[in-house]
């Protein structure tokens, strides 16, 4: 067993252990924090598919995070007020079912990623970073100024949505849902990285010309990666909205894109468990530093700077060393 595998097991165990200990000590807020970490890690896992595997530095993943959130907000608010979403040409009702909401969030953000990716992937480098940022900003301003769903005020959902057989308002049960999804997606992302697609995608990041020469199209690989990445981040957005029972345009802001990127880089780019480590560390810092000083952003900034300058490869890279080749 390599050091990284060992570390991954530890990282994987951290969140449920924290949640269970908190449950035993009757500290429901700690469970909520662990849930938040799991959901943000999920968003990071999504970004990492584009960023780590595909080398696509997207500065606009807030777009998908927000779309997922609004999928939840819009569907649940219609169910809450018993007004249909649409009557013509056919009737669409709102819903409080998490499973349906997740499906809609995934499809909506995948479609958005398809459109944004198809346009953005024509550019490379800094231009790609900036064009994805521009798409995120577009959705941000749209969400703020579109009055139908609360605009800047956002949408409040009074009760968490339903999941068959569970009481979602109970922190530990909602944690189980969020962590369960994270576990499934981590497993899927791990398989994806080692599957045919992952091999080709990662090769396209390392050397696009090589991939073309063996007859594969980097653009297609990247577009598919971008869509999968967007869909996973969208799913995280829907869960995040359910955690807060609230959505607002903040989910679309470029700070959100930056934060998701911070999770990935803090943990280690391209490492399967990087976003888990990054998100957990971020939440921990926010919680402890935030309690120490009003100006905790200064410390957070300093710490980030130190990680970038001196701890290359993020947390996992620093502890586990250089990545060993697969198999």
């Amino acid at each position, binding site marked *: 067993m390599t050091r990284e595998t060992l570390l991954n097991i530890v990282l994987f165990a951290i969140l449920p252990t924290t949640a269970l200990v908190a449950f035993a000590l009757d*500290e*429901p*807020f*700690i469970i*909520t*924090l662990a849930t*938040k970490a799991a959901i943000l890690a999920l968003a990071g896992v999504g970004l990492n598919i584009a960023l780590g595997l595909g080398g696509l530095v997207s500065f606009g993943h807030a777009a998908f995070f927000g779309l997922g959130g609004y999928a939840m907000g819009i569907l649940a608010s219609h169910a809450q007020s018993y007004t249909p979403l649409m009557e013509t040409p056919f009737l669409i009702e709102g819903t409080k079912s998490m499973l349906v909401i997740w499906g809609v969030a995934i499809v909506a953000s995948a479609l958005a990623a398809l459109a944004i990716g198809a346009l953005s992937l024509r550019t490379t480098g800094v231009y790609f970073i900036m064009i994805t940022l521009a798409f995120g900003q577009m959705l941000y*301003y749209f969400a*703020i*100024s579109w*009055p139908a769903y*609360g*605009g*800047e*005020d*956002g*949408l*409040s959902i*009074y*009760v968490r949505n339903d999941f068959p057989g569970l009481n979602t308002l109970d*922190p530990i049960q909602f944690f189980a849902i969020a962590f369960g999804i994270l576990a499934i997606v981590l497993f899927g992302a791990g398989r994806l990285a080692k599957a045919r697609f992952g091999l080709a995608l990662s090769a396209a990041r390392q050397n696009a010309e090589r991939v073309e020469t063996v007859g594969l199209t980097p653009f297609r690989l990247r577009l598919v990666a971008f869509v999968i990445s967007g869909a996973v981040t969208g799913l995280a957005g829907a869960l*995040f909205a359910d*955690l*807060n*029972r*609230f959505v*607002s345009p*903040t*989910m679309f802001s470029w700070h959100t894109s930056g934060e998701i990127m911070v999770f990935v880089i803090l943990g280690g780019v391209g490492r399967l468990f990087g976003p888990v480590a990054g998100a957990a560390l971020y939440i921990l810092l926010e919680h402890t530093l*935030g309690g120490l000083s*009003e*100006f*905790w*952003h200064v410390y957070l900034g300093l710490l980030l700077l130190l990680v970038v300058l001196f701890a290359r490869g993020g947390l996992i890279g620093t502890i586990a060393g250089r990545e060993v080749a697969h198999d």
Partner: protein
Amino acid sequence: MKLRTLIAAASIAALGAGMAYADGSKVKVGMITTLSGGGAGLGIDVRDGFVLAAKGNDNLELVIEDDQRKPDIAVQLTDKLIQSEKVDVLTGIIWSNLAMAVVPAATAQGKFYLSPNAGPSALAGKGCSPLYFNVAWQNDAFYEAGGMWASDNGIEKVFLMAPNYPAGTDGMNGFKRTFKGEVVGEVYTKLGQTDYAAEIAQIRASDADTVYFFLPGGMGISFMKQFAGSGVEKNVMGPAFSFDQGILGAIGDAALGVKNTSHWSKDIDNAANKKFVADFQAEYGRLPSLYAAQGYDTALLLQSAMGKADVKDAAAFQAALEEADFASVRGDFAFAPNHHPIQDIYMREVIKEGDVVTNKIIGVASSDHQDVYGADCKM
């Protein structure tokens, strides 16, 4: 022994705040407000006002958290305060959009929420709750009063301007609801916009006699400075938010002569207000703002109810709050059935007192003002 000390401490505190407590029921208050990032000034004022009024009351335990003006953080802090800190009462939110997130989360978990600033219409109407009390204003109040005053004072043609987001459009609709003259222009700007040259040109080109605008924070500062420099000669009116003490310092002389509606001003002539303004300046070395006044009143209201009922008895505590038996710095203050204020809204003018640019009341714009959403509220 311990109980006696508590009671003794409570009565000293009661003397300090100018009222008597019937018993020493303890209340743990969670305050979630904006203390870092943009708009932190407002949260700091609410906090300082509240702390000033609660000073010395050992029965009132206060936990303060910073929401960074982010709705998701605010909701998580709500969960934290309720689940971990086990608070009885929540307060502190500055922004409507955060209130829309926090208030339902708090009341759904059976906690009282006292709003020291925001009053979105949904929470005054359909979304009202027996546990939710607004100690500040319903969002439309200043605008409706502004429309009334404009109609009563011979203003005929106005140009409306606000950011393109719900608080902005709601505000302008509030003004239009009571204004009897003609709206000759209406512009909704980008949220966070800092350059208003284009809008000022439109204002210049219109035949309006008065500009009525709502631009909170830095947006209002930018607009006023640019408007003053443009040489456009039109009256300017707005709600108090753009002309509050913290902001006037940054606008300077450019704001002189502007009329703005407010439920509070430091020159309201009553004993409670005089004491508040003096104490606040003594404690913090700056003039209080309306946010500080609201924070102060919120703490007074809470302590008045603590004197009458135990917070664990929700029905009794609710009834005690409904009485609003405290000496508000605003003068007369009562709650309507939807737990929103019935209060006078004044018209103020920006003047210079020595070197300090500040506000002075020039009349009452709307007496015993009450919001229109109460009809939809079913408790």
